[in-house]
């Protein structure tokens, strides 16, 4: 369970968001500039809230009043960025292995095979990110985040940088991921159709405020 109740001033923009989510895929929906990315950067621990708390499964990750801030690298929260951010100096295999090595987890070939099969990236292992298509890059980024064994996966418009055809190519993988992995996700997007396909619960964000919470039908309201 994810509980967020934060406030953050970013220049002229004020973000004040409070929501609780139990769902498998929490859709964070809103126009660009609504504060979605800042919000999940705070959940990831990359951005410090001015006030408030962030709690996951009973563990407090941020509590400004109590001076609690768990740094990003100790949160075990996976993050798939819009621009993939694969490490250019490592090949796909090393990119996928990065989180496991940094977290000192035991090698788990079965898990690696499951993930590379799920995402169809087994044939790319020897390649460098520079030689991948946009869609392939995003699938590898997804696999890299999954293999660090996160307790929560944040996806910040993972299809945003892709054209229509590529989106249609990736979306089924995300649906499979939702149905086959047990990792809860926060999915950020401004695309209502994507949200309807993926999210089990919606948080509507407008101008830095949560304006609606609930099931997918919130989107039609």
């Amino acid at each position, binding site marked *: 369970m994810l509980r967020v109740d934060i406030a953050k001033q970013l220049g002229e923009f004020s973000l004040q968001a409070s929501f609780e989510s139990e769902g498998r895929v929490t859709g964070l929906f809103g126009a660009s500039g609504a504060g979605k990315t800042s919000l999940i950067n705070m959940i990831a621990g990359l951005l410090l809230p001015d006030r408030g708390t962030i709690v996951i499964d009973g563990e407090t990750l941020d509590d400004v009043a109590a001076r609690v801030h768990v740094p990003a690298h100790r*949160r075990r929260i996976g993050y798939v960025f819009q621009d993939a951010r694969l*490490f250019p100096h490592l090949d796909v295999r090393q990119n996928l292995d990065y989180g496991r090595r940094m977290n000192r987890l035991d090698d788990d070939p079965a898990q690696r095979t499951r993930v590379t099969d799920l995402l169809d990236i087994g044939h790319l292992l020897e390649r460098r990110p520079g030689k991948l298509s946009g869609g392939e890059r995003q699938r590898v980024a997804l696999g890299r985040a999954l293999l660090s064994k996160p307790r929560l996966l944040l996806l910040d418009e993972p299809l945003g940088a892709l054209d229509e055809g590529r989106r249609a190519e990736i979306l089924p993988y995300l649906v499979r991921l939702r149905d086959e992995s047990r990792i809860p996700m926060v999915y950020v997007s401004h695309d209502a159709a994507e949200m309807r396909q993926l999210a089990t619960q919606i948080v509507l964000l407008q101008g830095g405020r949560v304006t609606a919470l609930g099931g997918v039908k919130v989107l039609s309201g």
Partner: protein
Amino acid sequence: MLELTPAEWTAILLSLRVAAVATLVATPLGVALAWLLARRNFWGKSLVDALVHLPLVLPPVVTGYLLLLTFGRRGLVGAWLADHLGIVFAFRWTGAALACGVMSFPLLVRPIRLSIEAVDQKLEQAAETLGAAPWWVFVSVTLPLSLPGVFAGMVLGFAKAIGEFGATITFVSNIPGETQTISSAIYSLIQTPDGDVAALRLVAISVVIAVAALIGSEWFARRATRRLHGN
């Protein structure tokens, strides 16, 4: 005419040793400092930045004299090091290495700093979310991606150290076999009647070393860049 005398060989080998030691000791310090200047904000940052660059703008004789005052036998630091650790810089080749290291430091730090600044901080954030603690982010992402700059800095620093003259001769004098580098040997030869031919031989050697260093750095940088971004 092209045969080198043993004395000239001694000066060449000493120069190489002094410059190599200066560069190898200065590099980890330079990387640490470059990272601090590129990625951290702290009180007195502009002062540190100015201090690093000072040897570039000060007359070398001033730097050499300041080194003598500080690291000489009776200098504040020099006396302590000699008494407690047995490390003596004054009129030793180690002092020449120190002078060369200080003089080449700004040239070493600058390309490293620039290449660290050029590393996309979004990649460092990605590494953090994958569980990498700050030190590991540096070792596994920042440093490998800035290696071309590190090589460039090392080569520039080495080339500068090979050619250093003013601070070295001021600090550790011009003792054959101990502190007489190629530059100081050339200086001595120019002052000697009939020393011209020998001086020219050493001049040619300096040119060869400098050109080799530049070509080598170019090669290393290109290889490193290919390794980073190629397939």
